[in-house]
């Protein structure tokens, strides 16, 4: 058998294309010849180098840079897409707007003036309800009013404060679930990790684990591992943490 043919068979062998019989026949042929053995070793080493290759890490933290870029672009991108997909609708809206302007005149301008105060009013209502005495008011603030408030760091901070300090576990649960939607935000993520370490209520912990589980990194992994190995934790909490670790 020629060297070329043996070489082709060695490559096929390392590619996993040979049957068991073909493979053992090849090994017999290789064992009987010093040059073939050398050839085998060279391919073996090359395949090992390739299959054992690990990813090189970039010098800077690309994820942070991307998140920074994303924060700046997110709103623009969404609005551009909306413009593209609803171009015709926009023309119609413009036409109707002009008609309304002609018909209503000064009434339209007075409606426009009240728009900004309305948004401010929504945020102040949200903040007031969040500081209310009744847990049901505070839950309502989170579950209902929060949807009408524009997301911003101030709102996140308020919710984080509730998650840390509120005496009612139901209120903390609502805060954890709301914050969980923004786990991509680095500050929110850190707050959730901290809250998980200090939280006593199992169901609040469950909500936080579920939120963090969508974005497991080394820090989250360590927190979850601590939970799993902590004998004092409730079983369902440990099970949930374990399931997220398995997915990671």
């Amino acid at each position, binding site marked *: 058998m020629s060297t070329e043919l043996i*070489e*082709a068979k060695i*490559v*096929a062998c*390392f*590619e996993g294309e040979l049957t068991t019989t073909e493979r053992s026949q090849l090994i017999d042929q290789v064992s009987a010849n010093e040059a073939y053995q050398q050839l085998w070793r*060279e*391919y073996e*080493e*090359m395949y090992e*180098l*390739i*299959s054992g*290759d*690990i*990813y*090189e*890490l*970039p*010098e*800077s933290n*690309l*994820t942070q*840079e*991307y*998140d920074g*870029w*994303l924060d700046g*672009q*997110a709103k623009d*991108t*969404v609005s551009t*897409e909306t413009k593209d997909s609803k171009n015709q609708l926009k023309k119609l809206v413009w036409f109707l707007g002009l008609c309304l302007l002609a018909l209503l005149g000064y009434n339209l301008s007075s409606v426009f003036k009240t728009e900004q105060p309305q948004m401010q009013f929504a945020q102040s209502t949200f903040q007031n309800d969040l500081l209310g005495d009744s847990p049901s008011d505070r839950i309502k603030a989170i579950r209902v009013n929060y949807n009408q408030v524009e997301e911003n760091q101030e709102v996140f901070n308020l919710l984080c404060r509730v998650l840390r300090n509120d005496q009612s576990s139901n209120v903390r649960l609502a805060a954890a679930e709301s914050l969980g939607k923004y786990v*991509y935000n680095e500050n929110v993520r850190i707050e959730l990790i901290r809250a998980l370490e200090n939280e006593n209520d199992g169901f609040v912990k469950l909500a936080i684990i579920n939120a963090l589980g*969508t*974005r497991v*990194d080394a820090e989250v992994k360590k927190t979850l591992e601590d939970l799993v190995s902590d004998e004092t934790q409730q079983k369902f909490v440990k099970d949930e943490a374990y399931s997220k670790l398995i997915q990671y």
Partner: protein
Amino acid sequence: MGLVSKGDIKKSSVLFERYHLPIYNYFLKMSRDSALAKDMTQNVFEKMIKYHTSYKNNKNFKGWLFTIARNVKIDHHRSQKMKYTDDTALKNTAAKTCIQGDLEKSEKRDQLFQAMDRLKADEKELLILAKFEKFKYSEVSEMLGLSESAIKVKIHRVMKKLRTILIKEIRYEH
């Protein structure tokens, strides 16, 4: 990806975290230029957001992302010839890998990459996709627009050529 394709582009940071290393290493192996690899990785994810509507949920996401990466590479190649085999970059790579493993293994890895740099660009790309990224032949064939049997034949040829370069050229020079 489902949420991103529905317009929630903030969710793309999860995808970035999960897939940026394979993409970065694909460009790094192709160009041996870490700054270029970094820029092109960012570019891939920008394009992912731009063309998110073209993603079909039943498709292999990593494969789809690599198709974008190939297009980014081709665009770049058209506008400005990609740098292949840059000695400085190779030395930097060797220095970095010393931390990860022993010196001998690091040298061998460096020699392997030098040998890869002497392959044709399409051969090198095939090797990266099929062997380093471990895509199935069916996925590579879809990405490169070739039949599965053609991919299989090409892989055999590339592996033989790579060994020849590695043993007869690179190690001989050393």
